[in-house]
């Protein structure tokens, strides 16, 4: 009975949304695939007129990343990204808080000996993930990807390496990495305030569009994000996966 009601209610919601959004004038308005905001970001003419032609090799653009999505995420709307990083940080800290009391009981970790294949392959897979993760993060201004997937790959490599060697990631080191990276994000924002008069404004000259060194602040921010995300995710896995005895001292 309950399920029948659920079917009817959800079908009703879908039908309502579908009829409202996909018929009549709403459809033309919603699915134009173009907005003034997006066009201005694509052309890089928010502050003033852009050059007549924009392409690889353009100099002095207001925002240098060739990848417009990166330009939006880290430059035009960088404040959102600070918030996004904070959500992840708060969620992982929150998971630690929620499971804190339980960890004190000190249940035994189901210590399983890592398999031989895992042990043998782990360093190589780790190296691969490490290189690819950093490459994706550092090329975020030129190619799709950026700091979040890059950081996730780094975290995957880290967790894999640690589980293969049977060691716990040190909470202190993860916190150190996470905290310093987060603080650096805010510090980059304050640097923008000091040098450019606006919080999170990108300082320094924007280079030649398409060059590896074209958007230094973007690269810096994506590096920070990648490190922070990897530390946070490794920490989350540690919190969710392992029940530890806090009486034992953490590895230095």
């Amino acid at each position, binding site marked *: 009975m309950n399920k029948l009601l659920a079917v009817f209610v959800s079908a009703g919601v879908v039908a309502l949304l579908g009829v409202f959004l996909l018929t009549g004038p709403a459809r033309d308005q919603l699915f134009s695939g173009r907005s003034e905001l997006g066009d201005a970001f694509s052309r890089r003419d928010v502050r003033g007129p852009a050059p007549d032609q924009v392409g690889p090799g353009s100099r002095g653009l207001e925002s240098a990343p060739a990848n417009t999505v990166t330009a939006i995420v880290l430059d035009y709307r960088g404040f959102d990204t600070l918030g996004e990083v904070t959500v992840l940080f708060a969620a992982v800290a929150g998971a630690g*808080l929620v499971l804190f009391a339980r960890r004190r009981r000190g249940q035994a970790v189901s210590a399983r000996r890592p398999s031989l294949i895992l042990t043998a392959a782990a360093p190589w897979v780790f190296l691969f993930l490490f290189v690819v993760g950093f490459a994706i993060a550092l090329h975020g201004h030129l190619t799709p990807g950026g700091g979040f997937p890059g950081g996730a790959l780094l975290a995957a490599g880290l967790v894999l390496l640690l589980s293969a060697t049977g060691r716990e990631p040190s909470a202190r080191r993860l916190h150190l990495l996470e905290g310093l990276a987060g603080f650096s994000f805010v510090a980059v924002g304050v640097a923008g305030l000091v040098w450019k008069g606006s919080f999170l404004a990108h300082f320094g000259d924007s280079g030649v569009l398409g060059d590896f060194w074209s958007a230094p602040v973007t690269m810096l921010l994506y590096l920070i994000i990648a490190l922070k995300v990897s530390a946070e995710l490794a920490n989350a896995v540690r919190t969710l996966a392992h029940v530890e005895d806090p009486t034992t001292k953490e590895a230095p």
Partner: protein
Amino acid sequence: MSAAVAFIAAPLAAAFLLPLLGTRPTWGTRAASLLTLGALFALGAWMLAGPVPPHVIVLGGWRAPFGISLYVDASSLMLVTLFELLALAALWFQHQHGQEKPVSFDVLVLVLMAAGAGAVLTQDLFNLFVFLEIATVAALALSAPQTGSPRGVIRYWLFSAVSGAAMLLGIAILYSGAGTLNLVDLGARWGRLAEPVRWLSGVLILLGFLVKMEIMPFHGWAPATYRRAPSSVGLLLSGVVTGLAAFSAWKFFALVLRGGTSLPPVSGVFSFSQALFGLGALTLILGALAMLAEKDGKRLLAFSTISQMGLVLMALALGNPRAVRGALFLVFSHALGKSLLFLVAGIAVSRTRRSEWGAWRGLGQSSRSLVWFWFLGTATVVGLPLVPGFWGKLSFVGGALGMGMWGKAGVALLIAATVAESVALLRVGHGLWEHADLRKRSGDVDETSAAAGAAPACKACAGVSYWAGALAISAGILWMGLWPATFTRAFADTAAAYAGDQPVSVVRTSTDAFAPRRDGQGQVKP
């Protein structure tokens, strides 16, 4: 002019750095978090001591409809400063009277402060969504009980996850229709949107705010969450989270929905704002009646918050300047009064380990202050003359009486709800005050200090945090109640600025400066 960014950046920086001091709470971590909050409170007080001209802070150097901007004026600054004060009181209280919590508790309180300031100040719809999500995540983790059933919190997660999803869908619809995310810019383009787009996005986004404001059909998570959460977190939930939700809901309602006037009536009968007014009225009266039936002290306070938020929603839905001024006043007075009640409840719970208010009988015999603070909090919440709740309700009544039938019915409901709420709260206060059966209670009293969990270092400073917090909040209550003029003026200015009544309103000029760009269809004008 960018000083207000500190209310977001500083707590975040502190929250990121705090775990470096270790996961275990120490003297140092506690001092660091309290000092950060204290410094932010001092900054707010210092800024408010001088004149606060309304101004827009542009983030990243990208001008208004394109980048994200913050709008700072006296009211928003007051609200943020109030948040810092409440967090200071709550966190210190938790340090002294609560169970030992890891450092992440302090970290999340700081994150909540950043989210509160961000949600109050930001002028960008998606940024507002991000800050609401941060606030939700922090509030969820803070209110999870260390022992016992987490079902209330899971329900809280469920409600906020669904409402967050609805809000995101609404933002998606609104963005794809209007092509902008700035609240003022959205308001300017609202009229050009197709009617279904307006309806769907308006309803879906408001749903997100209503859940966080604990409005009646969406309040189901609140009582159980409040009951299981520490009282300090209850204080933060009812003072900070509902406060920021109410303020940002009003921003959306006033700037984008233009006070509900821009939506066509529902099948020609009642308008959008009347529907919200109805929801608020329902919440006001049912919340107050539920308080009468409630045996659990913390659930009773939760229903009181629900009822008060119903009144705030009614006032916001009326939309006239007097009523809106009253709504802002009520947000402040409710936050102050309810915090006082939660501090008393926190002491009571830490002494008896029960949340049923029947178990708190006679606690006021040994410490009279509990009774006095409870009565002051009650007076503030129900609105006796000379406390801030009175000015808020007066302003609401003044605004409502000019609105015909609906307004008069609202005033009648308000009187009924006020009576019910007073009876329910005074009953608990009387219970605290009266003689208890001492034989039954003697056992509890003995384990008082042991039961408190983290026993304070010295016996003498046992109640310092409670006294300091309660006295600071009482001072705020008396100040707002006896000299309401500063606040009234600030709230009236804000209401006028958001309604666009003032000839030169910074809220609007900040985006109108770029109006020429918008006229051409994507063409740059020289």
